[in-house]
Structure formats: structure tokens, C-alpha cells
């Protein structure tokens, strides 16, 4: 499929915008991670136990208890893109629109979902009465998870654009 110059310009501008938002979100993530780590350090300091917040508290494959993730991601197909793809199929011949297996995720995005059936809060790994700073750390890292999913979506869009431009060559 050949694009005209304007279409090509549009794609390049879109890609620059996506790259900009990708970098901005990565710096936001850095701020959040630093803030979360600071809260973890504060928790260790308040509790006066250096090993209180460490890998020792994390679940291991040896433990009998099953650990389920509180947050999952789901890949959702984009309806608007599906429609435009259908139009493409109608307008151009089949050879041009034949998609490789790599492109099957085009027009889809991740959605963060909270599992309702998982009742265990990871805070309980660190005790029953945990400090406020550990709760703040949890909030920061939950925001990090949410932001990571957004960044993954930008990454998917960038990949899709790259594939479009490669097709054009």
C-alpha cells in the first residue's frame, strides 16, 4: 500500500507525538518509583529493622499457600480500528490486506483489571498493623502499575505505526 506525501507526514507526526508521550510517561514513572522506594525506606527506618521490607517477605515457590495477582491486564480489541480495517478490506484487493501473524494485535490495547475474587492484600505479608508509609508506598506502586499499562499501550501504537510505514516501503 503506497501512501501519498501528506499521509506519510501525518504518520511521522503521529509517531513523534507518541514518542514524546512515551518519554514523558517514562519520566512520570521514574518519579513514582522513586517516591515509592522512599516510602519503603521510611518504613524500614521507622520500624528499625533493615530486613523488614525485603524479598524475605515475598511469596516463594516453596510456600504451600497459593498467591494470586490482584491486578491483571486484558487485551481488548479496538472497535474503531476494526471498522477501518473492514473498510480497507473492501476498498483494496485481498493481497494488500493480508496480515501476517505479527500484525494480529493491531488495533488492540491493554486494560488493567482488578480481580474481585482475590481478597488477600499484599500489605498482610508485612504484618497486620503496618505503618502509614508502607500504605503510601503501596499507593505509589499501584499508580506505577496503572502507568505501566498506559506506556505499554503507547508502545503498541508505536509498533503499529512502524509496521504501517514498513509496509509502505
Amino acid at each position, binding site marked *: 500500500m503506497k501512501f501519498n506525501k501528506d499521509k506519510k507526514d501525518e504518520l*511521522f507526526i503521529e*509517531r513523534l507525538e507518541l*514518542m514524546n508521550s512515551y*518519554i514523558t510517561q*517514562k*519520566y512520570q*514513572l*521514574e518519579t513514582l*518509583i*522513586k517516591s*515509592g*522506594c*522512599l516510602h*519503603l525506606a521510611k518504613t524500614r527506618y521507622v520500624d528499625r529493622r533493615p530486613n523488614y*521490607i525485603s524479598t524475605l*517477605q*515475598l*511469596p*516463594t*515457590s*516453596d510456600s504451600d499457600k*497459593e*498467591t*494470586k*495477582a*490482584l*491486578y*491483571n*491486564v*486484558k*487485551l481488548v480489541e479496538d472497535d474503531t480500528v476494526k471498522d477501518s480495517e473492514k473498510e480497507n478490506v473492501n476498498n483494496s484487493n485481498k493481497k494488500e490486506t493480508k496480515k501476517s501473524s*505479527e500484525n494480529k*494485535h493491531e488495533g488492540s490495547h491493554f*486494560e*488493567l*483489571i*482488578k*480481580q*474481585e475474587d482475590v481478597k488477600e*492484600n*499484599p*500489605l498482610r*505479608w508485612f504484618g497486620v498493623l503496618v505503618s502509614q508509609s*508502607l500504605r503510601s*508506598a*503501596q499507593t*505509589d*506502586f499501584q499508580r*506505577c*502499575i*496503572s502507568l*505501566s*499499562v498506559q506506556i*505499554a499501550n503507547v*508502545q*503498541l501504537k*508505536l*509498533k*503499529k505505526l512502524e509496521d504501517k*510505514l514498513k509496509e509502505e516501503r
Partner: protein
Amino acid sequence: MALHSAVKGKLLAVIGDEDTCVGFLLGGIGEINKHRQPNFLVVDKNTSVSDIEEAFRKFIKRDDVDIILINQNVAELIRHCIDDHTQPIPAVLEIPSKDHPYDASKDSILRRAKGMFNPEDIAA
């Protein structure tokens, strides 16, 4: 914002230093599946590059993992593996850590995207 659902989605895996792993697991992404495989790897000074590589390849092969979060300094150690992975899913995200700030010039996604801006693309 997260949606509430009873439907099981895919996992986020994490490879990173102690604070990154503890933090993200505290956030609620940690899981040990029925085959007793964790979705995280804590990298410390005793962890070899081959261990990191192996864990990364395992996460890529697992069909219950959709996003892999990896510290950028750890990603530097297995750069060849990350550059080889060109599939969109699982998405590999290089994240900063408290000791290593984010460096956009090292990010494989951005380097790949920048590589597309060559004179041949702009001309014609």
C-alpha cells in the same frame, strides 16, 4: 483506572532489583501459578546474566504473561535478548529504578523508532 472484574486476565511480570520487585508485588501483581512458577525475578549482585536471560526467555514463552517490566540497568545486561524480541506481545517495558534514572537513549523501543527516521523515509 482499573476495572473490577472476575474474569482472569494476563499477568505483568517483573525483573528488577529488590526494591522494584518488592514495590510492584506490594502493588499487587505478584503471582505464583499452579506450576509453582513466580512472575518475578529479584536481581541482586549474585544473580548471573545467564539467570536473567533464562528468566526473560521463560517470561516471553509463558502465555499467561502480557507485559514484562524490567529495570533499564538489568535490560542493559541482556540487551541482545531484548532487541531480538520484536513481537508486540508480551510487551517489554524498560523501567527506571531508584539508583538508575531513565535514559531515553538506551531504550530499545525509542532506538527502533528513531532508526526509522532515515533520509530514505523522508525523501520520496
